[in-house]
Protein backbone atom coordinates (compact mmCIF):
# COMPACT_ATOMS: atom_id res chain seq x y z
CA UNK A 1 0.00 0.00 0.00
CA UNK A 2 1.23 3.45 -0.89
CA UNK A 3 2.28 5.80 1.87
CA UNK A 4 0.40 8.61 0.17
CA UNK A 5 -3.24 7.84 -0.33
CA UNK A 6 -5.43 10.11 -2.37
CA UNK A 7 -8.44 11.50 -0.48
CA UNK A 8 -10.65 9.14 -2.51
CA UNK A 9 -8.65 6.08 -1.53
CA UNK A 10 -8.45 7.30 2.02
CA UNK A 11 -12.20 7.72 2.21
CA UNK A 12 -12.68 4.23 0.78
CA UNK A 13 -10.29 2.79 3.38
CA UNK A 14 -12.15 4.58 6.16
CA UNK A 15 -15.49 3.31 4.89
CA UNK A 16 -14.04 -0.21 4.71
CA UNK A 17 -12.74 -0.06 8.30
CA UNK A 18 -16.00 1.39 9.55
CA UNK A 19 -17.80 -1.62 8.07
CA UNK A 20 -15.41 -4.48 8.68
CA UNK A 21 -14.63 -3.58 12.31
CA UNK A 22 -18.00 -2.29 13.44
CA UNK A 23 -20.72 -3.78 11.20
CA UNK A 24 -21.38 -7.22 9.77
CA UNK A 25 -22.58 -10.36 11.53
CA UNK A 26 -21.31 -10.57 15.09
CA UNK A 27 -20.63 -14.14 16.14
CA UNK A 28 -19.57 -14.94 19.64
CA UNK A 29 -16.40 -16.66 18.51
CA UNK A 30 -14.23 -18.94 20.59
CA UNK A 31 -11.50 -16.39 20.01
CA UNK A 32 -12.04 -12.89 18.86
CA UNK A 33 -9.01 -11.33 17.31
CA UNK A 34 -7.02 -9.63 20.06
CA UNK A 35 -9.95 -7.43 20.90
CA UNK A 36 -7.81 -4.73 22.39
CA UNK A 37 -6.11 -4.28 19.00
CA UNK A 38 -9.39 -3.97 17.17
CA UNK A 39 -10.70 -1.53 19.75
CA UNK A 40 -7.59 0.60 19.43
CA UNK A 41 -7.75 0.70 15.65
CA UNK A 42 -11.43 1.46 15.82
CA UNK A 43 -11.00 4.21 18.37
CA UNK A 44 -8.49 5.89 16.08
CA UNK A 45 -10.81 5.33 13.18
CA UNK A 46 -13.72 7.08 14.90
CA UNK A 47 -11.54 10.13 15.32
CA UNK A 48 -10.60 10.10 11.64
CA UNK A 49 -14.11 9.31 10.45
CA UNK A 50 -15.62 12.23 12.26
CA UNK A 51 -13.20 14.39 10.34
CA UNK A 52 -13.96 12.98 6.90
CA UNK A 53 -14.88 16.55 6.08
CA UNK A 54 -11.26 17.50 6.72
CA UNK A 55 -10.09 14.81 4.31
CA UNK A 56 -12.47 16.31 1.81
CA UNK A 57 -10.98 19.75 2.38
CA UNK A 58 -7.59 18.32 1.42
CA UNK A 59 -8.86 17.58 -2.07
CA UNK A 60 -6.96 19.94 -4.29
CA UNK A 61 -4.61 20.97 -1.50
CA UNK A 62 -1.46 19.02 -2.34
CA UNK A 63 1.01 21.06 -0.33
CA UNK A 64 0.89 18.52 2.48
CA UNK A 65 0.31 14.84 1.73
CA UNK A 66 -2.75 13.48 3.51
CA UNK A 67 -2.10 11.56 6.68
CA UNK A 68 -2.15 7.84 6.10
CA UNK A 69 -4.18 5.91 8.65
CA UNK A 70 -1.74 3.47 10.24
CA UNK A 71 -3.22 0.11 10.96
CA UNK A 72 -0.28 -1.53 12.63
Amino acid at each position, binding site marked *: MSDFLSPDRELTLLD*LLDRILDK*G*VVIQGDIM*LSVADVDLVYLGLRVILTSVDNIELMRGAHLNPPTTPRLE
Partner: protein
Amino acid sequence: MLYLYAIVDRPGEMPLPRVGLADQPIFFYQDGEIGAVVSRVDPQQVTTEASHIWRHESVVEALAEAGGTLPVRFGTFLADEAAVLAMLAERRASFVAGLAQVRGRVELSLRAIWTDLPPPPAVVEERPRSGRDYIERRMVEERAAALRRLRAEQIADDLYAHLDQYAVASVRKVLPTERMVLSAAYLVAREDVPRFQAGVAEIGRDRPDIRLLCTGPWPAYNFVSPA
Protein backbone atom coordinates in the same frame (compact mmCIF):
# COMPACT_ATOMS: atom_id res chain seq x y z
CA MET B 1 -8.85 -22.69 14.51
CA LEU B 2 -11.33 -21.75 11.81
CA TYR B 3 -11.51 -18.16 10.62
CA LEU B 4 -14.99 -17.05 9.54
CA TYR B 5 -15.57 -14.81 6.49
CA ALA B 6 -19.28 -14.92 5.77
CA ILE B 7 -22.59 -16.73 5.98
CA VAL B 8 -23.81 -17.59 2.47
CA ASP B 9 -26.66 -19.07 0.46
CA ARG B 10 -26.13 -22.54 -1.04
CA PRO B 11 -22.32 -22.57 -0.83
CA GLY B 12 -22.09 -25.77 -2.89
CA GLU B 13 -23.43 -23.96 -5.94
CA MET B 14 -21.18 -20.94 -5.55
CA PRO B 15 -17.67 -20.43 -6.98
CA LEU B 16 -15.51 -19.83 -3.89
CA PRO B 17 -12.35 -17.71 -3.79
CA ARG B 18 -9.36 -20.07 -3.64
CA VAL B 19 -7.41 -18.77 -0.65
CA GLY B 20 -7.97 -16.41 2.27
CA LEU B 21 -5.90 -15.12 5.19
CA ALA B 22 -2.34 -16.50 5.37
CA ASP B 23 -3.00 -17.95 1.88
CA GLN B 24 -4.91 -20.84 3.42
CA PRO B 25 -7.50 -22.66 1.28
CA ILE B 26 -11.12 -21.53 1.61
CA PHE B 27 -13.88 -24.08 2.24
CA PHE B 28 -17.32 -24.20 3.83
CA TYR B 29 -19.56 -26.03 6.27
CA GLN B 30 -23.20 -26.38 5.32
CA ASP B 31 -26.42 -26.68 7.29
CA GLY B 32 -29.39 -27.08 4.96
CA GLU B 33 -29.29 -24.30 2.36
CA ILE B 34 -26.98 -21.98 4.31
CA GLY B 35 -23.25 -22.27 4.89
CA ALA B 36 -20.33 -20.69 6.72
CA VAL B 37 -17.25 -19.87 4.62
CA VAL B 38 -14.02 -20.47 6.54
CA SER B 39 -10.30 -21.20 6.33
CA ARG B 40 -7.89 -22.77 8.81
CA VAL B 41 -5.81 -19.98 10.34
CA ASP B 42 -3.70 -19.67 13.46
CA PRO B 43 -5.22 -16.67 15.33
CA GLN B 44 -1.68 -15.51 16.12
CA GLN B 45 -1.17 -14.89 12.39
CA VAL B 46 -4.07 -12.46 12.05
CA THR B 47 -3.65 -8.85 13.09
CA THR B 48 -5.35 -5.57 12.28
CA GLU B 49 -2.82 -4.68 9.62
CA ALA B 50 -4.14 -3.36 6.32
CA SER B 51 -3.19 -6.39 4.22
CA HIS B 52 -5.18 -8.73 6.48
CA ILE B 53 -8.20 -6.44 6.48
CA TRP B 54 -8.12 -6.17 2.68
CA ARG B 55 -7.77 -9.96 2.35
CA HIS B 56 -10.89 -10.54 4.47
CA GLU B 57 -12.70 -7.90 2.39
CA SER B 58 -11.63 -9.39 -0.96
CA VAL B 59 -12.93 -12.83 0.08
CA VAL B 60 -16.26 -11.35 1.17
CA GLU B 61 -16.54 -9.25 -2.03
CA ALA B 62 -15.91 -12.31 -4.22
CA LEU B 63 -18.59 -14.23 -2.30
CA ALA B 64 -21.06 -11.35 -2.52
CA GLU B 65 -20.56 -11.23 -6.30
CA ALA B 66 -21.25 -14.96 -6.52
CA GLY B 67 -24.42 -15.08 -4.39
CA GLY B 68 -26.26 -14.13 -1.18
CA THR B 69 -23.65 -13.20 1.45
CA LEU B 70 -23.77 -11.90 5.03
CA PRO B 71 -20.31 -10.54 5.87
CA VAL B 72 -18.94 -11.55 9.29
CA ARG B 73 -17.11 -8.93 11.33
CA PHE B 74 -13.31 -9.05 10.94
CA GLY B 75 -11.41 -11.24 13.41
CA THR B 76 -13.89 -14.01 14.28
CA PHE B 77 -12.59 -17.54 14.97
CA LEU B 78 -14.41 -20.74 15.90
CA ALA B 79 -12.71 -23.84 17.30
CA ASP B 80 -13.84 -26.55 14.88
CA GLU B 81 -16.53 -27.93 12.59
CA ALA B 82 -18.84 -28.72 15.53
CA ALA B 83 -18.72 -25.11 16.74
CA VAL B 84 -19.50 -23.78 13.25
CA LEU B 85 -22.44 -26.17 12.76
CA ALA B 86 -23.84 -25.36 16.21
CA MET B 87 -23.64 -21.63 15.42
CA LEU B 88 -25.41 -22.11 12.05
CA ALA B 89 -28.19 -24.18 13.65
CA GLU B 90 -28.71 -21.75 16.49
CA ARG B 91 -29.05 -18.67 14.28
CA ARG B 92 -30.55 -20.26 11.19
CA ALA B 93 -33.81 -18.23 11.18
CA SER B 94 -32.00 -14.90 11.41
CA PHE B 95 -29.43 -15.89 8.74
CA VAL B 96 -32.12 -17.12 6.32
CA ALA B 97 -34.06 -13.85 6.72
CA GLY B 98 -30.90 -11.76 6.40
CA LEU B 99 -29.82 -13.61 3.24
CA ALA B 100 -33.26 -13.10 1.69
CA GLN B 101 -32.85 -9.36 2.24
CA VAL B 102 -29.33 -8.96 0.76
CA ARG B 103 -29.50 -11.43 -2.14
CA GLY B 104 -28.68 -9.63 -5.40
CA ARG B 105 -28.11 -6.38 -3.56
CA VAL B 106 -25.13 -4.28 -2.53
CA GLU B 107 -24.50 -1.48 -0.10
CA LEU B 108 -23.59 2.11 -0.98
CA SER B 109 -22.22 4.60 1.50
CA LEU B 110 -23.27 8.23 1.30
CA ARG B 111 -22.05 11.19 3.31
CA ALA B 112 -23.07 14.82 2.93
CA ILE B 113 -20.82 17.61 4.16
CA TRP B 114 -21.61 21.32 4.50
CA THR B 115 -19.67 23.43 2.06
CA ASP B 116 -20.80 26.69 3.63
CA LEU B 117 -20.49 26.08 7.37
CA PRO B 118 -18.62 29.00 8.93
CA PRO B 119 -15.36 27.90 10.59
CA PRO B 120 -15.54 27.59 14.38
CA PRO B 121 -14.29 30.66 16.25
CA ALA B 122 -10.52 30.43 16.48
CA VAL B 123 -10.03 32.46 19.62
CA VAL B 124 -11.49 31.85 23.04
CA GLU B 125 -14.12 34.45 23.74
CA GLU B 126 -13.64 36.76 26.67
CA ARG B 127 -15.48 35.83 29.85
CA PRO B 128 -19.12 36.89 29.99
CA ARG B 129 -19.48 40.23 31.75
CA SER B 130 -22.58 39.23 33.68
CA GLY B 131 -25.05 36.41 34.23
CA ARG B 132 -27.38 37.99 31.73
CA ASP B 133 -24.59 38.31 29.16
CA TYR B 134 -23.86 34.59 29.64
CA ILE B 135 -27.53 33.61 29.16
CA GLU B 136 -27.79 35.74 26.01
CA ARG B 137 -24.70 34.15 24.50
CA ARG B 138 -26.03 30.69 25.24
CA MET B 139 -29.35 31.57 23.59
CA VAL B 140 -27.60 32.77 20.42
CA GLU B 141 -25.53 29.57 20.30
CA GLU B 142 -28.56 27.37 20.84
CA ARG B 143 -30.58 29.15 18.17
CA ALA B 144 -27.75 28.71 15.68
CA ALA B 145 -27.54 24.99 16.52
CA ALA B 146 -31.31 24.56 16.22
CA LEU B 147 -31.32 26.30 12.82
CA ARG B 148 -28.48 24.10 11.59
CA ARG B 149 -30.33 20.98 12.74
CA LEU B 150 -33.49 22.12 10.96
CA ARG B 151 -31.54 22.78 7.75
CA ALA B 152 -29.78 19.40 8.02
CA GLU B 153 -33.12 17.66 8.39
CA GLN B 154 -34.50 19.45 5.34
CA ILE B 155 -31.45 18.45 3.27
CA ALA B 156 -31.70 14.86 4.55
CA ASP B 157 -35.42 14.72 3.64
CA ASP B 158 -34.58 16.05 0.19
CA LEU B 159 -31.90 13.34 -0.27
CA TYR B 160 -34.27 10.59 0.89
CA ALA B 161 -36.99 11.84 -1.47
CA HIS B 162 -34.59 11.56 -4.42
CA LEU B 163 -32.65 8.41 -3.53
CA ASP B 164 -35.16 6.13 -1.80
CA GLN B 165 -36.62 5.18 -5.19
CA TYR B 166 -33.35 3.39 -6.05
CA ALA B 167 -32.91 1.65 -2.69
CA VAL B 168 -34.71 -1.16 -0.86
CA ALA B 169 -33.51 -0.15 2.61
CA SER B 170 -31.32 2.42 4.32
CA VAL B 171 -29.75 3.29 7.64
CA ARG B 172 -28.99 6.92 8.23
CA LYS B 173 -27.87 9.42 10.77
CA VAL B 174 -28.48 13.17 10.53
CA LEU B 175 -25.71 15.44 11.85
CA PRO B 176 -23.36 12.71 13.14
CA THR B 177 -20.83 15.53 13.60
CA GLU B 178 -21.16 19.28 13.43
CA ARG B 179 -19.78 19.50 9.90
CA MET B 180 -21.46 16.41 8.48
CA VAL B 181 -25.08 16.79 7.42
CA LEU B 182 -25.79 13.12 6.95
CA SER B 183 -24.13 9.70 7.03
CA ALA B 184 -26.09 6.89 5.42
CA ALA B 185 -25.86 3.39 3.95
CA TYR B 186 -28.24 2.28 1.20
CA LEU B 187 -29.10 -1.27 0.18
CA VAL B 188 -29.44 -1.21 -3.61
CA ALA B 189 -30.16 -3.90 -6.21
CA ARG B 190 -26.93 -4.58 -8.11
CA GLU B 191 -28.47 -3.47 -11.41
CA ASP B 192 -29.67 -0.18 -9.87
CA VAL B 193 -26.19 0.93 -8.70
CA PRO B 194 -25.51 3.13 -11.78
CA ARG B 195 -28.92 4.80 -11.38
CA PHE B 196 -28.26 5.44 -7.68
CA GLN B 197 -24.84 6.92 -8.45
CA ALA B 198 -26.29 9.07 -11.25
CA GLY B 199 -28.96 10.26 -8.80
CA VAL B 200 -26.28 11.26 -6.30
CA ALA B 201 -24.33 13.13 -8.99
CA GLU B 202 -27.47 14.96 -10.07
CA ILE B 203 -28.29 16.09 -6.52
CA GLY B 204 -24.65 17.16 -6.10
CA ARG B 205 -24.99 19.44 -9.14
CA ASP B 206 -28.21 20.99 -7.81
CA ARG B 207 -26.96 21.66 -4.29
CA PRO B 208 -23.85 23.81 -3.96
CA ASP B 209 -24.42 24.03 -0.18
CA ILE B 210 -23.34 20.39 0.35
CA ARG B 211 -20.74 18.01 -1.01
CA LEU B 212 -21.76 14.37 -1.45
CA LEU B 213 -19.27 11.52 -0.95
CA CYS B 214 -20.41 8.13 -2.20
CA THR B 215 -18.35 4.91 -1.87
CA GLY B 216 -19.16 1.34 -2.82
CA PRO B 217 -20.59 -0.98 -3.90
CA TRP B 218 -19.82 -2.81 -0.65
CA PRO B 219 -21.01 -6.17 0.66
CA ALA B 220 -24.11 -5.49 2.78
CA TYR B 221 -22.34 -4.97 6.13
CA ASN B 222 -25.06 -2.64 7.44
CA PHE B 223 -27.93 -4.97 6.51
CA VAL B 224 -27.01 -8.35 7.97
CA SER B 225 -30.14 -8.55 10.12
CA PRO B 226 -33.63 -8.58 8.60
CA ALA B 227 -35.20 -5.11 8.65
